[in-house]
């Protein structure tokens, strides 16, 4: 590994050879983290805000964050969804204090300034003073103090926001292939949230986002499927990476019928010590009729759309300081699920999340890396599996999608 030239006060310079070497200090430097907030999360990117389904009626709002910045997404009387910074224009108080709510306007608890659902300042308590005494000075103009707005775009029921006018429109940003991956899972369906939880990750946000793009680790770190000898049949699949590099999806197909066959024979091998007592967590149907049993899709910088058999989830990755992140799991069902499908999704839910048989390791491995880099970060990791480029590939023994991440990262960070 080549030692990197690093300036603690000025963030981290780029790796010596493009996108297949990653300076460790990128995960540990506080100044780098501060810059990422400006250049990536507030930069020309799109961040997941909420599901359109969470804002059924005008006046409904959801409070979330883009990077570390508190924002609100709200449905205006005209039915449009707006997003704006969740910080009062007066003294900076947090406006919305709960995760979701509804109302005709948003009123600050501190001094009662009120805003409409597009973030426009509409009322200032005592603006004219009391009995003509006090109040705001004559030159004060409410319309100079609206809340900072974000651009909003929607795709297949997912709502995204961007701080930066330079960001291309959402579908262009995603690219046709990844946009197609989103539509495959959600387009024309009516998602319902069937569960929600947050997994706190003891590591820099990038370590998790890389992990999701990392097809290399799947069968090695997550041994559940192998140990219990589940779907050992060869799985055709591949990785599709968007032009910008930051968005991607990987997928694999499964012969559902063969698996059922296999399952029957399993019964006969009672002797086998590593068998599942109750295989119902695997009972799955080819919901999309294309035999794709796994599709993991990422949208730079912080969203994951997951289909693992019939377990559908949106994961939202939120940076929380240089060495900490939060991962929100939003488990989805659909309006037309019958009771059998509902039960199926719940049982398959054991595969994923903070306690998931094939996902829990991702919750700790990032922390192991973070720890190993403490005061020992002046070298670089290597990401050369499958070459040095970031193109789509039909095989999974590659780190191509990770290189894709660094391609977009470096373009935005200007390093």
């Amino acid at each position, binding site marked *: 590994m080549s030692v990197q030239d690093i300036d603690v006060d000025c963030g981290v310079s780029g790796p010596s050879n493009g996108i297949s070497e990653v300076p460790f200090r990128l995960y540990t430097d506080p100044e780098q983290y501060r810059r990422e907030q400006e250049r990536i999360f507030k930069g020309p990117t799109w961040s997941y805000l909420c599901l359109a389904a969470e804002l059924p009626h005008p006046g409904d709002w959801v409070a979330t964050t883009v990077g570390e910045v508190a924002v609100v997404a709200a449905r205006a009387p005209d039915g449009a969804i707006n997003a704006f910074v969740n910080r009062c224009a007066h003294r900076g108080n947090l406006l919305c204090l709960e995760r979701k709510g509804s109302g005709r306007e948003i009123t600050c608890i501190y001094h009662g300034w009120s805003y409409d659902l597009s973030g426009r300042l509409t009322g200032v308590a005592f603006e004219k003073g009391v009995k003509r005494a006090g109040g705001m000075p004559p030159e004060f103009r409410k319309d100079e103090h609206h809340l900072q707005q974000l651009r909003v775009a929607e795709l297949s029921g997912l709502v995204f926001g961007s701080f930066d006018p330079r960001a291309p429109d959402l579908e262009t940003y995603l690219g046709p292939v990844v946009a197609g991956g989103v539509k495959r899972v959600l387009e024309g369906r009516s998602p319902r949230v069937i*569960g929600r939880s947050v*997994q706190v990750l003891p590591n820099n946000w990038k370590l998790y986002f890389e992990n999701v793009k990392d097809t290399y680790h799947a069968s090695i770190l997550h041994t559940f499927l192998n140990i219990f000898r589940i779907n050992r049949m060869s799985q055709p699949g591949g990785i599709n990476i968007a032009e910008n590099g930051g968005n991607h999806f990987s997928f694999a197909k499964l012969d559902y019928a063969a698996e059922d066959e296999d399952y029957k024979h399993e019964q006969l091998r009672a002797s086998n010590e590593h068998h*599942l007592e*109750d295989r119902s967590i695997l009972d799955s149907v080819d919901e999309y009729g294309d035999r794709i049993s796994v599709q993991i899709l990422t949208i730079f910088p912080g969203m994951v759309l997951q289909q693992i058999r019939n377990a559908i989830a949106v994961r939202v990755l939120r940076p929380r300081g240089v060495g900490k992140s939060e991962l929100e799991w939003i488990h989805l069902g659909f309006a037309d699920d019958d009771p059998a499908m509902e039960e199926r*999704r*719940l049982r398959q839910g*054991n595969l994923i999340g903070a*306690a998931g048989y094939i996902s829990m390791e991702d919750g700790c491995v990032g922390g*192991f890396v973070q720890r190993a880099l403490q005061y020992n970060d002046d070298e670089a990791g290597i990401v050369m599996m499958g070459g040095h480029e970031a193109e789509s590939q039909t095989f999974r023994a590659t780190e191509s999608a990770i290189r894709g991440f660094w391609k977009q990262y470096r373009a935005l960070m200007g390093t």
Partner: protein
Amino acid sequence: MDDQAVRLGVADLVAAYGDCIDDDRLEEWPDFFVEDCRYLVTSRESHEAGLRHGVIYAASRGMLVDRITSLRRANIFEKHRYRHVAGAPRILSVEDGVAAARTSFLAARIMHDGETSLFATGRYLDRIAVSARPFRFIERLVVLDSQKIDTLLVIPL
């Protein structure tokens, strides 16, 4: 069985359950449940919102056994233990040999290097078969107060 006996039996069951987990005698854990049981771990927020998808959902004792097999054989994580400290169980009702009980608890997590943190707090909502000894859980709903889970949840609560 008289009230007093149920009360004491449930208190013993709840205490023994915690010790079993905290002692890492996880292979014995499924035996605290009847064959046709339900064990769920979810958050107060999801529970109150009627969202059925939690973090762990077992609908049979077999699924509990599989949890432990996977923990022992398949899953990779840093060694750690819990310390359960529970308040006194409250018996809400006893009908047809089934006691409904609730217990407030907290679980500290102690990593192998000794790092200790308050990992979880919540309440157990239990349905317990009390017509015969040993008492066993028909349903144990673990409602965590927080929707946040630090790092991962592999040892049952």
